[in-house]
């Protein structure tokens, strides 16, 4: 199936509109999340409780027509609760593997930082290689495979901050923020969001989604764009404002997301605005400020201002 570019844009808009019916006034974040998924990346949503993190994840899963499972992370969750376990069956006299929630197309890991690092790292292999090793046997995960994780700000009580290695596995990190007054009013006046969620019908089939994922790789990223990307990455490494610069994996993620963003905008090539649009989401959670300040949030904008586009 070959979808022309203008059709792509129409399809993308449909998806965004569908999710926007449950998450009001957050089109930009929805687009970013979509771009992240199209770039085959995993998404981390960080915000205070009750801001709509889970709603965004569920809405996306429904609109994309993916099989969906959810794990609520708690402090006593064990890796086996995620990956699955072999259980002895008396009838056959054998051990039979009962797959865990990770064996689905879209895994929502809710409040991932409430569990211990041991359990958090059970997701590492699944996210990086798309497979799970349980009891010495490696089993492939369904395709496509996404993880959408939500977490509370690390300053909240009862949280285990994600280690850098785990954070780097997440392609992008979003934060939703409070809705604007008009959107909030519509939310308050509207019906129950749970019911609205059920009303979202899938806009894509799994095959179509995979097709779009392939199409992302074919979006042209010209020499000039690669140069700009390299300048950005170099700046974070040499300017001394950050504890560590961006990793090569971050560079790849940045390029892939920029391509996805260009595709959502209905273009077949990447322009600097695409890079700038996805940069805060992709780079923000990887750049820790060099001084006492905890995160590099505002500084990421500063990088964009300082590095010449041309």
């Amino acid at each position: 199936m070959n979808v022309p570019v203008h059709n792509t844009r129409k399809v993308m808009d449909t998806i965004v509109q569908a999710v926007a019916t449950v998450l009001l006034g957050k089109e930009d974040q929805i687009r970013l999340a979509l771009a992240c998924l199209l770039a085959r990346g995993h998404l981390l949503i960080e915000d205070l409780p009750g801001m709509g993190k889970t709603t965004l994840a569920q809405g996306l899963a429904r609109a994309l027509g993916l099989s969906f499972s959810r794990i609520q992370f708690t402090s006593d969750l064990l890796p086996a609760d995620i990956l699955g376990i072999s259980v002895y069956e008396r009838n056959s006299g054998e051990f039979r593997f009962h797959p865990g929630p990770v064996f689905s197309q879209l895994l929502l890991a809710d409040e991932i930082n409430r569990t211990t690092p041991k359990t958090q790292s059970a997701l590492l292999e699944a996210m990086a290689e798309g497979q799970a090793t349980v009891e010495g046997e490696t089993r492939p995960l369904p395709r496509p495979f996404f993880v959408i994780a939500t977490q509370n700000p690390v300053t909240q009580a009862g949280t285990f901050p994600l280690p850098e290695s785990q954070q780097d596995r997440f392609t992008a990190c979003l934060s939703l923020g409070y809705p604007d007054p008009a959107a909030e009013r519509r939310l308050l006046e509207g019906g129950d969001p749970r019911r609205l969620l059920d009303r979202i019908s899938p806009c894509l089939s799994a095959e179509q989604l995979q097709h779009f994922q392939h199409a992302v790789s074919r979006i042209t990223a010209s020499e000039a764009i690669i140069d700009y990307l390299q300048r950005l990455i170099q700046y974070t490494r040499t300017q001394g404002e950050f504890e560590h610069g961006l990793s090569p994996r971050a560079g790849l993620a940045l390029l892939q997301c920029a391509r996805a963003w260009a595709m959502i905008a209905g273009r077949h090539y990447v322009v600097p605005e695409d890079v700038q649009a996805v940069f805060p989401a992709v780079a923000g959670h990887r750049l820790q400020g060099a001084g006492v300040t905890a995160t590099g949030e505002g500084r990421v904008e500063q990088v964009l201002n300082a590095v010449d586009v041309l």
Partner: protein
Amino acid sequence: MTAIRQLPRYGSLWLLIAFVASVLPHTGHLPPWISVAAAVAVAWRVQIFRGAWHYPGRWVKFALLCLCLAGLVLVYGRLYGLEPMVAMLVAAYALKLLEMRDKRDALIVVYLGFFVAVSLCLFDQSLVTAAIVLFALAAVTAGLAGIHQTDLHHRHFRPAMTGAMLLGQALPLMLVLFLVMPRLPPLWSVPMQRESGTTGMSDTLSPGDITQLGRSAEVAFRVEFADDVPPRRRLYWRGLVLSRFDGRTWSQWESWTYARDNIHMHGEAPPHWLAGQWGTGTSVAYRVTLEPTQQHWLYSLPIPQPLTAGTGVTRNYSLVRREPVVSETAYRVRSWQARPDASDSLSPLRRRVETHLPAGYNPRTQRIARQWAAEADDTEALVRRVLDTFRRDFFYTLNPPALGQHSVDEFLWDSRRGYCEHFASAFAFFMRAAGVPARVVVGYQGGEHHRAENYLIVRQYDAHAWAEVWLEGSGWVRVDPTVAVAPERIERSVVDVLEGEEGLFSASPLSLERFRSVAWLNTLRLRLDYLDYLWTKWVLGYREQQQSLLGDLLGRVEPWRIALFLLAGAGLALLPVLAWCFVQARPAFTRVEDRWYRHFCDRLAGIGLAREPGEAPGDFARRVAVREPAIVEPVKGITEAYERCRYGGDRAAGAELKARVRRFRPRWSRLFFYKDRKP
């Protein structure tokens, strides 16, 4: 405003380094208490930096000022003169450094630093000094850069880099000024207070004078011969002819020697007493580079023909110069190997002066001289007899015993130990006592032949004194009694003769001369001397070449031509700096589309809409569209063409971009659609 005036903490540290670098080389010629005061100022400043001490209070500062002034007056007794002035400058520098609090003070300290550093050149102009001054200038420039950086900079060596870079950028201009700037004579002269510390020949000769010079390894002059270097025994560098003797000291007969008729300056028609001297026999031409002596006389081989303007030859065949030699001076001479004019005769007055002896000195010598004169057949036999006596039982030494009132008597018949001036003086006295006109000549003998570069180095320890006697029919003939006593002094070198003797080089404790026997050190010594010679010849002695260079460059040397050339040269010299700045400021664009787009941005910047560095072309176009609706269409077209071409890989869009940018005239469009413009 106060924040700007405040001095950055590390900036003051650089000023301290600059202070040490510019004052330290001065310590040699300043009174010791000033060095101590400077050290105290630095120490105090360091304590202030560490936060241990406070700034000096008003009364402390006043007391320090009074102390410094009192010290200056006590040491010098006057303020006019080079050394008191420099001492005062250094004292002021130290005091200002101590009270420096804000940026304005720091600037004064920096300017003082430049002055103090450069004033070092007034005392010494050697290659080493030039290097020290350059280093001090770099340090002061670093101080200047240091007070303009903020404390947020973490790189403390950055001011040093900036200072060195600034000096480097100034270097081409410095070169042009050096080449072209006319060497003006000073508008007023500052008396140089020359202490006895400087070595060199004086215009009188007493026992012990040349012995003193023999202890110094400093360079007196260097000579470059046009052809081969003549053999050592012919290298008698005549300086002064001393005809008057007062019993202890030989001095010049100034009224006769420097009478106008008895001096022939370069460029004049030769007088009668020179008529037969030049143009007969063989000659050697050479160029002498003389270290400053503060005196009027020059050194040359007999019989000199001056080839440089401003120099002349006296009737004693000594070479003189109109101005004293206050800085390194080069002159050319051709020396003729002719015998002095045999037909010349001594006038009665000259004969009386050249045989005059003070009454009541050295009676024993006078008696014996008269006796020997009666016994000898002719003057030459008498000379031979005296030299034979010297040859038999006299010693040549750098450490002769002190002599009393009858110095010649004591030397000839008692101690028999002496240096060249003792022999020359005694010989001339003896001859005069015997009725033969005789005089003492002082100058240098020999010199070290630098074989690699083929020039001759004459040092202070080559200083020598010998005698000349008047032989009827032959004129003045050189007789060197030292040859009789120590022939190796003339054939080899004074260093070989006196090796191991106490006192040799005692005036030059750091000289590499001490290690002549170590081969590689000797090579190093000669290399260093050549470097120093090149410096003296081409940098300090550049005055001479400058005239011909300017003549070649300008056609005629006129002030306005020089000024024009100076301006053009300075412009040319600064061009590379400008080019470098330009290249630094603009990123290199290899793609033609980038250049066109940059052109488009420049035009928009011309109407006040400059693109921010982090602003993508699309965002920029949208911002322009809001501000200047009149030019939405062309801006949008250009931006789209650029994006297609540069990001979309559409090569054909390049031509469209070029065409659109060429047509793009935002100034005109704005003029016509001015009303549409939103505020």
